[in-house]
């Protein structure tokens, strides 16, 4: 079955800048689809082309099999929830929601009925006669959603709809959006730069960067099997290894020689041949630290390396460690490890600064990237080394804490 909504080779240029570069993908009917990426990645431009505010320079947009590329916004069965709400200040809440219905010249009774239904859906029954300026941010947002949904669009577009709300309200509206989507069953296309929102809400996420879609997958696959170093580093945190495949083991696994570290066993789902250069991503929470060398119960599928702890930040539910493999501090592997303490008090001696411990992970937890870009390493959460040996320790701790907080916002959900 062809996708309900299709982008086919869509390109948009603004002067010398290519905002969207030959983007091709499809969205299924009823899906909650999220476009995720840092600012300037082209996600909003893509949304604006779908709404009809901008025209693509190349490519086609198909909705329900029909080419809508050249249609003006008012001729598309697509409605938008704007980031700043864009409610009409001179109209009451009821008139705002009825705006589109009145343009369609529907009978008054039907308009009233549909507006009342929407007011109920977004829980604003008692506010119908108020003006938008008399509402709070969350209420305005719900009016904007009702105003778009009342027209029963084929696709509802949401442009960073929660960005202007404070944290508590954002979390609440997230649940509400999810429920609304379940109830109305309309296809949602949701643009955001907040990975937490995308991971929590979307059925599938398209991660974008520099006008290109890097990966489209359900949230769990995006997190567990990132295709590129950008996806791995932008969503959550990770560790990268660069190496060469030295040996194929049992068809499904391979050995990767990593310089200055040793041989790493890795799941070879892409059936890469010996001799190929590869990049691995291993999430911090998949790595384990132990005082004793772990016993390999998985016939050679556990990677074990001796490391030294050089930074540790206690975060309540977990502790984040940064460890080093190698003697020379300027030229060694620095890895980030997340240890959840399920039985903190029962743990043997807690791991502490400068401890020499064993780092281990299962071969299945290392994931081979298809595409690697060195610049993505800057997205990783590594504490910056103090330039002077006795620089205030607080700086390091703060950096680490904020880094940990980001992970907490992102992957902790």
């Amino acid at each position, binding site marked *: 079955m062809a996708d309900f909504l299709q982008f086919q080779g869509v390109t948009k240029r603004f002067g010398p800048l290519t905002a969207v570069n030959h983007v091709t993908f499809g969205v299924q009917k009823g899906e909650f689809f999220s476009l995720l990426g840092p600012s300037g990645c082209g996600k909003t431009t893509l949304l604006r082309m779908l*709404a009809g505010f901008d025209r693509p320079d190349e490519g086609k947009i198909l909705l329900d099999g029909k080419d809508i590329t050249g249609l003006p916004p008012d001729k598309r069965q697509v*409605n938008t929830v704007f980031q700043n709400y864009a409610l009409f200040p001179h109209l009451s809440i009821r008139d705002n929601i009825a705006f589109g219905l009145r343009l369609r010249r529907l009978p008054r009774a039907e308009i009233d009925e549909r507006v009342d239904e929407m007011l109920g859906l977004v829980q604003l029954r008692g506010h119908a006669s108020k003006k938008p300026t008399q509402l709070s941010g969350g209420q305005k947002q719900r009016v904007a959603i009702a105003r778009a949904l009342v027209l029963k669009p084929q696709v509802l577009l949401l442009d960073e709809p929660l960005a202007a709300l404070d944290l*508590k309200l954002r979390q609440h509206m997230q649940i509400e959006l999810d429920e609304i989507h379940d109830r109305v069953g309309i296809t949602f296309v949701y643009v955001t730069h907040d990975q937490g929102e995308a991971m929590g809400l979307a059925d599938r996420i398209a991660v974008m960067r520099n006008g290109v879609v890097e990966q489209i997958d359900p949230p769990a696959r995006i997190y567990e099997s990132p295709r590129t170093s950008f996806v791995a580093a932008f969503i959550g945190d990770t560790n990268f290894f660069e190496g060469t495949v030295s040996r194929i083991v049992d068809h499904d696994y391979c050995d990767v020689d990593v310089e200055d570290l040793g041989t790493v066993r890795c799941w070879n789902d892409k059936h890469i041949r010996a001799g190929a250069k590869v990049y691995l991503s291993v999430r911090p929470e998949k790595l384990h630290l132990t005082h004793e060398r772990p016993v390999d119960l998985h016939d050679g599928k556990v990677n074990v390396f001796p490391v030294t702890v050089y930074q540790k930040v206690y975060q309540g539910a977990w502790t984040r460690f940064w460890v080093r493999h190698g003697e020379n501090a300027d030229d060694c592997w620095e890895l980030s490890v997340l240890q959840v303490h399920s039985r903190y008090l029962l743990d043997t001696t807690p791991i502490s600064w400068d401890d020499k411990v064993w780092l281990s992970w299962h071969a299945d937890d290392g994931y081979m990237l298809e595409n690697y870009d060195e610049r993505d390493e800057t997205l990783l959460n590594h504490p910056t080394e103090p330039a002077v040996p006795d620089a205030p320790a607080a700086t390091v701790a703060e950096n680490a804490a904020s880094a940990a907080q980001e992970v907490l916002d992102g992957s902790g959900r």
Partner: protein
Amino acid sequence: MKRLQRRSLATFWTVLFFFYVPILVLVVNSFNASKFGGAWKGFTFKWYEKLFADHAIWQAMENTFAIALGATLASVVLGTLAALAISRWKGKIQSLHYGLLYTHLVLPDILMGISLLLFFISVGLDLSLFTVFLAHTTFCVSYVAMAVLGRLENFDGSLLEAASDLGATPWQTFWKVQFPLLLPGIAAGGLLAFTLSIDDFVITFFVNGAGSETLPVKIYGMIKRSRDLPKINALSTLMMCVTVLAVVASRMMQGLGTRQQQRDARAAASAASPASRQEGQGGRVRR
């Protein structure tokens, strides 16, 4: 401290004196039975009676209001369109357009009067009410455009996108969203144009022809004959009332939008705390 207070109070009274005493003298003299105004010789409505009986003055009054209405309507349409064009397309041509409109605001009236006169003569247009109308429209357009531009500066463009997103054609978007929101600016510009047109003398003086005198021009002619002076006082008093009323109305309309916003913002602020509490409760109940 006290001396300072006294001095500023003195300044205040001096300013008031020079601003309003001449006007007061005029108003008082319009009710003064004395022909020359020097001394008070008793209260009378005589001058007003004479004024109402003077057919030529009423003709001029009629001309003035016809011109003012016509010029206001024309300049409201043209000025609004000009402002829309300037705010929508930010190119070289539109900045030139803005410059041209702005020039009218600072150009001396006498220059405009002479140039318009020369222009009408060169194109062979006979001086009449029509040329006065054209001249007034010319300078009123600038004022209307500036008033609407001020309103457009704070205009949220996403409202127009939202309207078209909801199915409004460009025409519907203008009439249902943009126009209602620009209306205070348009109305203020229109009232400004109306008052400017009513009391314009210099430009009208150059471009009016036989039978197309407006009140200010007519008054200028009457000043030469002393027996008309009290009538002028009466007329000026009436005109002043109309102008003041128009200006007050214009100010009220301009302020209406912003004050309404402030009131609403206050209402929202006071409603915000219970509202957010309500939202928080909603979350707890569901869980």
